[in-house]
């Protein structure tokens, strides 16, 4: 392993290259600029291509072109750029084109605050384009090292499910520095649990029906496959159609290729949940690290608290919320987003609370105060940063 003191952006770039990414198109934006910068240096070194796009919409369309040309591709941005992916993201979902996308979370809406972390895109990454009728895959690292690991995983899933995969990493993950180990040998890659999947190009003309056991068509379009790529509903041969039945068949598969195979996607970290604690603290991204510190401290003082960290956000892991407990969602937003999914997924007689703010992480002491208050059966007392309303 080679050790670095580097940013999450650097880790993501190294991981992408390791996973076989050879094309990156992007447009600079804090806090994802360093990813584009790193890719502009790294890709030419390995025979790849870096393209500076005129905006984010063009960047992701360029990635679609790269993917159709047979390459593993990536783009990266922050919230204000991610919304400009709306059009090409839809193309990639509907035409089943593998692309890895970084959304580095800062504080919104719009330009908001650049150099501070936010988690306001929890739903935005679930519904990144118009029209509905699809599922998305979203992974949320909480450290630079995990960003490395999940980037490799994102490329695997993008190829496996033939669709775009989003990495949602807050500004502290992408912009913060940390000690990072980068594997150099195959043994080290295996030790890290990395999995890889090569691009499979089928030169037959059929778009679908699927032959794969997880219901995914065999071909990635383009690259002389003879199959068409279009934003219309495709027939089984890949021709455009306006038939409702064909549309249903197509989008049903877009949804269920993901829903039926969540076991290949879902990842989480359970901490101190074995003894069915009264309070379960749910979080993702960097806040989860403070939550873990706080739960460790809480346990030392005898509080029955556990932590559940979501590593994959979408498809949402409803099955993890079976406990009849008090739930607390800790998020970097003021409006409460993850908390809504928790309430939908958990047993109906559970109490669900929300603690959120932007730009700064909650402190361990603040969390301990909130834990105690909830364990005492109270609502969260109005200290300066909590927002119980959602």
């Amino acid at each position, binding site marked *: 392993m080679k050790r670095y003191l580097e940013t999450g952006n650097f880790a993501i770039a190294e991981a992408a290259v390791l996973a076989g990414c050879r094309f990156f198109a992007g447009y600079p934006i804090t806090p994802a600029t360093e990813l584009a910068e790193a890719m502009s240096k790294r890709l030419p070194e390995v025979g790849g291509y870096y393209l500076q796009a005129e905006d984010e919409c063009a960047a992701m369309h360029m990635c679609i072109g790269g993917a159709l040309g047979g390459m593993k591709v990536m783009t990266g941005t922050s919230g204000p750029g991610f919304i400009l992916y709306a059009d090409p993201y839809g193309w990639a979902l509907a035409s089943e084109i593998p692309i890895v996308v970084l959304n580095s979370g800062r504080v919104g809406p719009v330009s908001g605050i650049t150099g501070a972390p936010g988690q306001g895109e929890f739903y935005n990454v679930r519904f990144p384009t118009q029209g509905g009728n699809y599922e998305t895959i979203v992974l949320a690292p909480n*450290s630079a090292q995990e960003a490395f690991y999940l980037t490799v995983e994102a490329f695997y899933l993008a190829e496996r499910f033939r669709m775009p995969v989003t990495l949602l990493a807050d500004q502290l993950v992408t912009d913060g*520095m940390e000690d990072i180990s980068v594997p150099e040998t195959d043994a080290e890659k295996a030790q890290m649990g990395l999995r890889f999947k090569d691009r499979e190009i089928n030169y037959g003309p059929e778009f679908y029906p699927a032959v794969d056991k997880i219901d995914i068509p065999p071909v990635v379009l383009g690259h002389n496959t003879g199959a068409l790529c279009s934003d219309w509903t495709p027939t089984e041969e890949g021709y455009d159609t306006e038939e409702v039945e064909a549309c249903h068949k197509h989008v049903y598969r877009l949804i269920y290729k993901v829903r039926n195979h969540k076991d290949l996607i879902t990842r989480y970290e359970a901490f101190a949940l074995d003894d069915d604690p009264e309070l379960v603290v749910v979080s993702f991204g960097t806040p989860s690290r403070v939550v873990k510190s706080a739960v460790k401290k809480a346990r030392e003082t005898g509080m029955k608290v556990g932590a559940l960290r979501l590593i994959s956000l979408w498809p949402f892991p409803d099955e993890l919320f079976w406990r009849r407990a008090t739930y607390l969602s800790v998020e970097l937003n003021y409006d409460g987003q993850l908390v809504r999914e928790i309430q939908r997924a958990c047993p109906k007689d559970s109490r669900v609370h929300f603690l959120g703010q932007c730009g700064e992480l909650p402190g361990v002491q603040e969390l301990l105060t909130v834990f105690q208050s909830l364990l005492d059966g109270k609502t969260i007392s109005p200290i300066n940063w909590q927002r119980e309303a959602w």
Partner: protein
Amino acid sequence: MKERTEILISGFGGQGIVRLGQIIGLAAIKQQYRVTMLKSHGTEQRGGYVRAQVIVSREPIDSPIVEDPDYFCAFSTPAYRRHVDMVSQGVIFYDPSSTEVDEEKVKKITHYSVAARDIAIEKLGQAIYTNSVMLGAMARKMEIFGKEILLAAMLDVVPKFKEENARAFEAGYQLIK
């Protein structure tokens, strides 16, 4: 060594705050510690509020935020005021040319006045070496790091004028006993 050591450096953009955090982080890696270094900054390239939070530990680090710094280094009065109440047991370094300290706090918490900017100008002719002088002063008190390792980390990180930076570091180191 404590379970975790928290270091907070704050000031204005352009003072080398993030650089200092980066140097300390690299020194931690050289000593086989685990480390996180978060930087917060405004949109401005220079002049805005900047903060670097470094956590050093032998174990994997959960919370990456500084809540009770063992070492707090202030490069501006606003930065000092914003964070001074967090310090309970730790020590504070500050540059009196840019930072006005609270006399009540000085009675309770160890403050090291490091005239880093003045020394940088006097000995090296340029204020740009201010943060290297400060790092030298901090090196004297940050027991978890060897002096030579901090110096080596600094020389790895600064792109040029390495000799001048090393002299600045030494001048800072000699300033505090």
